[in-house]
């Protein structure tokens, strides 16, 4: 069980590139997880961050990062929710938009594009969160997506971090994550995860 962003970054630091990590986030540790990955871990390893937002729009995450005083220079977003929001959302230049969270192939394509643009710099890809993708997609296509996506990222030596919001997880999601990820790390809560 990990309690702080620094501990999370230290734990991740030990893992080799191409690792796929299921990050189980318990209760109110969401921002600790974000800080641990996109700030401390990515800076320590000199990584670009490609952050896939499914649970909440990218502008909300960007606002949070600004409040946490995290440098946004090497953070890029693939936003899968803003397009389906009625009224649209504020646009940022480091954000690529996917029309709908059901367009799973387009998520892979946008990530591929950002990896190509990173010109040799290694990447950490954050998928926030698998539960939210599960709202829009059935388990068969979601499993197929994760299997192909994570294996592609492995081939590119990228770190994959898949968020699971522990309170909203199901047995199906847990089994799928066990199949595609190498490591599970739990952050927050009082259990021994």
């Amino acid at each position, binding site marked *: 069980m990990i309690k702080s962003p620094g501990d999370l970054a230290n734990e991740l630091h030990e893992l080799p590139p191409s690792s796929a990590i299921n990050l189980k986030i318990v209760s109110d540790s969401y921002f600790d997880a974000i800080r641990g990955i996109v700030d401390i871990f990515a800076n320590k390893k000199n990584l670009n961050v490609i952050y896939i937002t499914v649970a909440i729009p990218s502008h909300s995450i960007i606002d949070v990062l600004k409040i946490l005083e995290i440098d946004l220079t090497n953070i890029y977003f693939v936003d899968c929710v803003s397009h389906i929001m009625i009224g649209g959302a504020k646009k940022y230049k480091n954000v690529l938009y996917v*029309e*709908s969270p*059901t*367009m*799973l*192939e*387009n998520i*892979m*394509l*946008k990530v*591929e*594009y950002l990896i*190509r*643009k990173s010109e040799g710099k290694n990447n950490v890809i954050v998928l926030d969160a698998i539960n939210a993708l599960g709202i829009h*997609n*059935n388990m*068969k*296509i979601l499993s*197929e*997506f994760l299997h*192909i996506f994570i294996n*592609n990222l492995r081939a590119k030596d990228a770190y994959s971090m898949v968020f699971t919001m522990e309170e909203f997880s199901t047995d199906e999601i847990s089994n799928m994550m066990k199949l595609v990820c190498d490591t599970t790390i739990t952050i927050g809560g009082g259990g021994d995860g």
Partner: protein
Amino acid sequence: MPSENIIERERCVTGIDGLDNILNGGIPRGNTILFTGSCGTGKTTLSLEFLVHGALADENSLFVSVTESSDKLTTNVIPYDFFEESLIKTGKLAFVDMPVIYERLGLTNVEFSLEDVDTLVRALGNLVDELSVKRLVIDSITSVCYRLKTEEKIREFILKIGKALSNRGCTSLLISEISPSADRYSLYGVEEAIADGIVLMGNYERRGDLLRTLQVVKMRGTTHSRAKYVLDLTPAGVLLVPLLKGGGGI
């Protein structure tokens, strides 16, 4: 187990990573490929990228535009990160308008005769020789076929142009326009039977989402994937990923 005696044909590496993977290394050099699909599926963009990569690899590349003026084409369709203006200045990448060729050859009739077909094929062959072209795109072959009218003349034209280009070691993409509901790969049905390869580009609708797709249906001289891929047109070029099947239950 593959025989050691199989001779691998030299490849024309398209430079589009996903497509080269699908084709196990690229298009067999000298093949004439039908790039077919309805409008907005990315045929012109993909064929232009094929030429730009060719020019960057020091292979002279020629785009023959039948429907759109090449000036308009160059201003609208080259936002690639890897594009260099010098490719056009040095003649590595050239554009020719087919109506200009028609005019110079005196092909003014609405319907071409078999003699006109020979004249046109000879002129294109001479152009390929003159510019030492290794990669050619005709956009679109459907528009040329409008002037040929009969199956006999279309067959004659495709056979002769394919042979003329292949003999010169020129790998060519013939762009074919079909309607979204078409049940064949070309408007006249003749082109697809004669071409060495068929790459089908389309739109795939899944639960209201419209995905651009690419599928290599046929390619002589190489083994290849026949699966459907989803593509994205980006400044880094055309990117491809496999179409998800979702267990076939959607």
